[in-house]
Every structure is written in structure tokens, then in C-alpha cells.
């Protein structure tokens, strides 16, 4: 077995979302805890892409922040079997993540200067030019400011900056969600090319299943802070096992096979402060039975790339089908 570059075990992150102390005392409100990430396991082998997909608030960005060390975990473990300085992050918003007062050259050079402070200036300039060319911009762009670029070009600048840190591992949180589809295609193609050429590993976050299908080797579907299903991409689309995954796939509009009578999924994602007991998907699940309301389907932490947390989609089906 190749050793994974990232190993995430029973990861948890809770946030205290209680009312301020005085209100709690006066109005007798209890402390409230939000479980943003509630027991998550996955591995990523080097050179591969694992995607986290799910609806707003299911915990995707929180995992990104835990993995990159922007938040400390409340429980569980993250092991990065690489040089921690070689982990970089690309954010959703290419506008907010670039310092508007810095020229592009300085923005891209920053991780390089942090990594190798002794690099001579001429060499930094040459490297920045090379990186800008790698992402499809030109050396002359180093002298410009971020506002002089379009959204897609700014996301290229973010990628060039991430590459300047000589990363092995990139955490990409919705890197194309703010971009138009034609620009998205340019950025996704670039990310795939760089992965091929440099052997990069990606933790790729998106709410868009078609993007995830295109980018990922393995897909983890999240619901209310947990992974409900994880499978290699092709298998997930061919044979989705969790009722939530099936509903998602049934709900998203399909350009190639439009179904104008598509029945929408009922209900909404419940509040993560007071998730339903048992399987948290049970209020929306067409297959729910008594056990689902009382008991939570447990994850099997030993199997890392093919798992479903559901009593109806039994382990047997899974094992018979794949393992």
C-alpha cells in the first residue's frame, strides 16, 4: 500500500454558538454547541484528488480550515505525511484572497520568499515570471495590481501564488464557484495539467457534482458534518448507495438529459445545532424506518475509500458489490 499523504481520523470540530453570557443568565438560555464536523475519516494517496461535496453548511470549509491548521480540531487527528510548509490553499473568492495594494509580482513571490528567504532578487523575479507563464498569464502581469484582472485571471494568480510555495498538497475550497463556466473550464483544465505535471495531491471542495465528477478520484458526500458516503468517482455515479446521494443526483439538473418533470427533494437541511436524533437524514429519507430514528449508522473507520453510513444500504450490499 502506498502511504497516504493525508490521513484524517475521527475528526471533530465544535463551535460554541451560545447566546452571550448575560443573555444566558437573564433569559435562562442553555449553552449551545454546533457540531460543524462530527467524526470524519478519509485518506488521500499522493497524486490523487479527493473531493468533498455537499450542501451549504455541511462542514466542507471547516474541514479545509482544520486540514490547513486555520482551526484547531476539537477531536480526532489529522496526519500530514509531508513537509507542512508544502501545503497551500486556494480559496473560493479570488477577489478577497489577494492583497489589493500589492502588485501581482509581490503577491506571487511571497511564499517563495518565506520558503527560501536567501533567494537573490533576480532569481525571485525569474521564478515569478515562470509561474505566471505556467498559469497562462505573462511576465509583464507581475507589475499590475489585482483589480486590473478578471475573476478567472485572479484565480490564476492565486494558483501561481500557491505554486510558488512548491506545494505537494493543495487544499482547494470551491476554487471555481465564483467563476463563469467558460472561465471555470480554463481553471479546471489548468489544475488538472499541473497535477499531471507536478504530481500534486488535491483536497478539492465543491458543491457542484459535475465539477467534482470531472476532478476527483474519490468523492466523499457530506451531510450535517459527517461523510454519509465515500466511493471512487465512477462507482459513486454508477451506483450511489446512500439515499441522500441518490436524491442529490436525482435533483441536479442535467444538461444532457433534461427532465422537465423532475421532482425536487423535499425538506431542508436541519440546523446543525440541533440535528435530528439517529440518522440525521431520517426526516428527509424515503427509506427511513424505526431504527433510523433511534440509532446512528456508525462509520467504519477501517475502510477509507468505500463506505456508506446507512442501515438500508447495508454493508453486505457494499461488500458484495465491491470489496
Amino acid at each position, binding site marked *: 500500500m502506498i502511504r497516504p499523504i493525508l490521513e484524517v481520523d475521527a475528526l471533530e470540530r465544535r463551535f460554541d454558538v451560545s447566546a452571550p453570557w448575560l443573555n444566558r443568565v437573564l433569559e435562562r438560555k442553555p449553552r449551545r454547541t454546533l457540531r460543524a464536523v462530527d467524526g470524519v475519516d478519509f485518506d488521500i494517496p499522493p497524486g490523487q484528488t479527493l473531493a468533498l461535496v455537499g*450542501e451549504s453548511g455541511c462542514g466542507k470549509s471547516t474541514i479545509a480550515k482544520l486540514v490547513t491548521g486555520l482551526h484547531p480540531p476539537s477531536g480526532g487527528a489529522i496526519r500530514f505525511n509531508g513537509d507542512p510548509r508544502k501545503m497551500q490553499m486556494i480559496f473560493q473568492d479570488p477577489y478577497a484572497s489577494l492583497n489589493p495594494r500589492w502588485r501581482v509580482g509581490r503577491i506571487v513571490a511571497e511564499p517563495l520568499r518565506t520558503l527560501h528567504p536567501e533567494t537573490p532578487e533576480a532569481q525571485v523575479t525569474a521564478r515569478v515570471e515562470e509561474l505566471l507563464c505556467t498559469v497562462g498569464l505573462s511576465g509583464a502581469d507581475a507589475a499590475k495590481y489585482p483589480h486590473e484582472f478578471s475573476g478567472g485571471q485572479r484565480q490564476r494568480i492565486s494558483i501561481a501564488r500557491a505554486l510558488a510555495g512548491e506545494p505537494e498538497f493543495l487544499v482547494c475550497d470551491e476554487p471555481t464557484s465564483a467563476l463563469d463556466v467558460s472561465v471555470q*473550464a480554463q481553471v479546471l483544465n489548468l489544475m488538472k495539467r499541473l497535477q499531471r505535471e507536478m504530481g500534486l495531491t488535491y483536497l478539492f471542495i465543491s458543491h457542484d457534482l*459535475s*465539477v467534482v465528477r470531472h476532478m476527483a478520484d474519490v468523492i466523499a458526500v457530506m451531510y450535517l458534518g459527517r461523510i454519509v458516503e465515500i466511493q471512487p468517482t465512477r462507482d459513486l*455515479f454508477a451506483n450511489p448507495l446512500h439515499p441522500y446521494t441518490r436524491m*442529490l443526483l436525482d435533483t441536479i439538473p*442535467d*444538461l444532457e438529459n433534461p427532465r422537465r418533470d*423532475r421532482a425536487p427533494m423535499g425538506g431542508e437541511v436541519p440546523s446543525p445545532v440541533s440535528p435530528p436524533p439517529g440518522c440525521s437524514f431520517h426526516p428527509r429519507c424515503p427509506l427511513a424506518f424505526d431504527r433510523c430514528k433511534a440509532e446512528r449508522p456508525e462509520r467504519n473507520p477501517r475502510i477509507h475509500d468505500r463506505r456508506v453510513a446507512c442501515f438500508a444500504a447495508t454493508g453486505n450490499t457494499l461488500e458484495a458489490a465491491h470489496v
Partner: protein
Amino acid sequence: MTDTVLDVRALRVEFPTRRGVLTAVDEISLTIGKGEILGVVGESGAGKSMTGMAILGLLEPPGRIAAGEIRLSGDRIDNLTEQQMQTIRGRRIGAIFQDPLTSLNPLFKVGDQLVETIRLHSSLTRAQARARALDLMREVGIPAVEERIDNYPHQFSGGMRQRIVIALALCAEPELIIADEPTTALDVSIQAQITALLKRLCRDRGTAVMLVTHDMGVIAETADRVAVMYAGRLAELGTVEDVVRRPQHPYTAGLMGSIPSLRHDESELQMIPGSMPRLGAIPAGCAFNPRCTQAGPKCRRDIPRTDGAGAACWLALTGETV
């Protein structure tokens, strides 16, 4: 055609600036019939919202309608005073925007906002208006309406708020609804609920809907016809099947190819090189010509136009680009 609700002819929206006049909408012509959903797609900055705002009479100065005509069920509405336009908005045209909070007042209960709007457009009593508000809330799929009617907007989820905004837009039974990215801020499962709701309302009430979105999947499953905009101009207009499956305009074809598939493996996505020009720098002739692999001398000289159907492309119009 007697069933035409919205008829836009050669609409031009301009922004006079220090550096010259910018044309945000450049001779757009389109119609929407009773009970029809027209999808409007294009990249950000293509002029989709400005077209909608011009129809609603909500262009922010110095933006102005510089040419063209807008008719609502036969009546000119592009030359009305702001006061006249105020009665048209709400009563005859409803609006739904991306962020439901821009349409709701956070300080008032949603029920009161609905009742106010209903009474503004009818002679119902307060009690009758409240009964009607409850009906509307039920119609847009709010559960437990008797309890929810006295909630404030912040007590609703994003999807529920957007349902309330739709209920508000429906208060006066408008002929036309302009929905600008109504589901962009919502989750996929909620997005599907809202588009299903719009479709049902359009069918049951015969309302004409202009659905502005950048999501081709939503268009494919919701709209009857589609208008594709590029750099302020109409690139292509046609039935949803034609535009999605048999795009005639090289830009539309490129756009379709750049969307990752849910069914096929693609090692590379099709790319359109470059980016949409900024308003001050639109090239002569066809606005798409610097990015088009089929551009010829005619494309760099003369602007191709489509009048309400087909592709605004010399190749599609005349079979040649010389």
C-alpha cells in the same frame, strides 16, 4: 400575436461616463408569451441584469434607456414617469432577485409585508388580505402557515425567504415576473424546489417569466426558450432544445462544451480562449471575433444581429464570413 406579454424591440441601455458612453445592452429584441419561461444566460457582465432592470424601470442613473421600445401586453412602458412605473411594478410586473433579503424588510413580520402589498394593489379589507396572504404562503409551499405568518424574515431559512419573495411578487397577480438569479444563493435541493415552484406558477397562472441565470442545467429543465447574451448583445435566441443540443453560434457551442458532464468522462474540458471584452473595449464587427476560430474578415467589419430568433453570427446567417 395576442398572447405576447413582453415585447422588447432593439433595446439599448447606456452608461455615460467620463471616458465615453458605455453600451451595456446593445439592440436586444425579445418576446415572452403568456405562460412562457424565457431563460436569459451569459457570463457575468453580459448585460442580463441590465436588461431586466431596464424592463422594470429600475436602472440606476446615469444608466438610461437610449433606444428601443418595451411593451407590456401592448402598452409602451419604457417612456413612463417613475410614478407611473411604480404602479406597473408590483401590479403588472413582479421581481425576484438573487438575495431575498433585498426584497424583504427585516423590521416587519412577513405576514404584514404580504398584507400591505396585497392591499396596495386591491381593495380588500385587512382580514381578507390576511386570508389571501395565508393562501399565497400555502401556494408557495410554506409549511404551518398560521404559525409562520407572524415570523420575521430572519426567522426563515434562505429557501423559505425566497418563497416569501415569490409570494410577494404574486400578490398582485402580475402578467410578467422577472427573476434575476433567483436560486443562485440557494442549495441544490432548495434550488430545485424553487424552480419547480416557478414552473408551476407559470403554468397554472399563465404568468410570463424572464428567468435570468448562469446555470445552463436550470435553463435546460425550466425554460421554453433561451436568449444567450454576450457583451451586451444577443448571441442566440431559440427553443431550449435547439440552443442546448444544436447551438448555431460558436460562442453558445463553446459555452455548452465548457460545462463538465454528469455522464461522460472527459480528460479535458473544451475551452474558449480569452475572455469576454470589457464594455469600453468591444471589438468592431462581431463582439466574439477575437475568440472565434471561424472568424473571417466580415466578422471583424460588420455586426451580425438576430431579430428575435436564431444566431447572431455571419456563418449561421449567410453561410460565410468573407
